[in-house]
């Protein structure tokens, strides 16, 4: 067994334990967003897909890399956006109706906040 493999295994086991520890405390209310968030996190496979490019110099390599990148890209972007959408809805009190209409522009919302557009309403 190589030292590198041993390191990898150690990291793997410790990460498993951290995963169990961190999730155990999450209330049922958040189980769906949590599942969605972990769903987005496994989109990290995008890194693996991109690394294919280092050695891919044949048609087969390109095809495999392309499909993996499409899959992983959809996973990671979709996963985070949908989790964000869900979590945005959890509020302690019923919000003002104005906030709702702003929520329609999901992707632009953060940008709008940053540049100060529509700040008067939120």
């Amino acid at each position, binding site marked *: 067994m*190589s030292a*590198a493999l041993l390191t*990898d295994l150690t990291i793997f*086991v410790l*990460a498993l334990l951290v*995963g*169990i520890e*961190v*999730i*155990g405390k999450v*209330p*049922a*209310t*958040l*189980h*769906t*967003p*949590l*599942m*969605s968030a*972990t*769903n*987005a*996190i*496994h*989109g*990290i*496979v995008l*890194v*693996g897909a991109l*690394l294919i*490019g*280092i*050695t*891919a*110099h*044949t048609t087969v*390599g390109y095809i*495999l890399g392309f*499909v*993996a990148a*499409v*899959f*992983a*890209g*959809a*996973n990671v972007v*979709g996963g*985070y*956006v*949908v989790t964000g*959408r*869900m*979590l945005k809805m*959890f*509020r*302690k*009190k019923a919000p003002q109706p104005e906030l709702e209409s702003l929520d329609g522009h*999901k*992707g632009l919302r953060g940008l709008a906040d940053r540049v100060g557009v529509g700040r008067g309403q939120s």
Partner: protein
Amino acid sequence: MTGFTAHVGFAGWIQLVYVLAAALFVVGLHLMNSPATARRGNQVAMTGMIIAVVATFVLLIHAGTVTTTGWIVLLAGALIGSGVGLYAAQTVKMTAMPQLVSAFNAVGGGAAALVAIYGYYQAESTGGVLGTTSVFSVLDVLIGSVTFSGSIIAAGKLQGFIGGQPIIFKGGRLLNIALAVVALGSGAYLFTTPSLPALLIVVLASLGFGVMMVLPIGGADMPVVISLLNAFTGTAVAMAGFVIQNWALIVAGALVGASGSILTKLMADAMNRSLANIIIGGFGTGDSAVAIGGPVDAQVRSIQADDAAIQLAYASKVIIVPGYGLAAAQAQHGVAELGKILEDHGVEVSYAIHPVAGRMPGHMNVLLAEANVPYPQLVEMDEVNPEFPRTDVALVIGANDVTNPAARRPGNEISGMPILDVDKAKSIIVIKRSMGHGYAGLENELYFEPNTSMFFADAKKAMTELTSAVKTLVA
């Protein structure tokens, strides 16, 4: 490939950045244990992801071996995938959330399998496969492929492309075992002999196994299956991390694998079913619809909106019990409106959330949150059950099996399943389209209780009628 990702030199620094990204994932997940900090948690995790992806591009540029075609292929792929994911995530209805999560599981697992398939193809074409790399490659391909096809079937079932009923055919179980044997056998063969055709057999047999694994599982068990497949994807990604010796993949995959397994167990416990029981299937067939000692000739009491509204408006404590029927009818906004009117009128309103209400763990919470119900009003089963005896009206909307008192008795399909003690409320109003059975195919004894009234209507229509009736009363 390993030459560039070994833990030395420049790649070693990149690994350190990956560790930072992994730490942000852990912090992000940790922040998800309260609704107040959950949004920040997601943003922290997303930051980790961006850091990891940027570091990867830096590594790719530094390596300098990516061809022009390679760049075009990778960037085009990532952008197309991102676009599709973004569009799907922004347009999906909250009721269709489980399908989408399942679809993301499919592509995540598929990508993980492809990473290993490529790694194997590459190593083999340049001569020889390392023993250890091969073990993880085979596991990655196995789990990734099973997740890919299984998640597609699960999503298809939830979306209604494939019947929600368990699909069981003669010899199905035998075929399943045969596929598993072939997949594992070819995988084991790969440990000793590098062979691309054998790898292809592993892929095909695993894909077949994924399909055969999910087909016989009933729609009611889908929440558990999705959670399980999520854990599978995480594990496949971790295995891919071993294949390319990448810490970001190993840590993130392990986190998801562990959390997914725990969620799956919580779900299975909530339904009082073992995982093995769910996977083997047979539940929710609807064929076993036997009235278990239920009073077959008993009469149910039917009620109209006006009478129901009077009960609600003059109650001092109302518990609303939402079920999948509510989600299916898209009635969550109507319910929230009714709840708010009652609340403003001085009625104490809360929502009783069964752990398996909806189609994913905690799905009902999301649907009600979407309708702007403040989350402190959503009460979990263990907390709400002692409240029922001092509740004037329990309003059951499209929930069935989780309210059936038959679960307290042994000897039927839902025996031992934790239920909401709705029958202990002073009066019960059940909104339901018909006397049809729930997923367990059982008659619900609650409907025959003397203090139960049935309001036969589509949940959305019922909410509109009830709301306007209550409005005239409280005005």
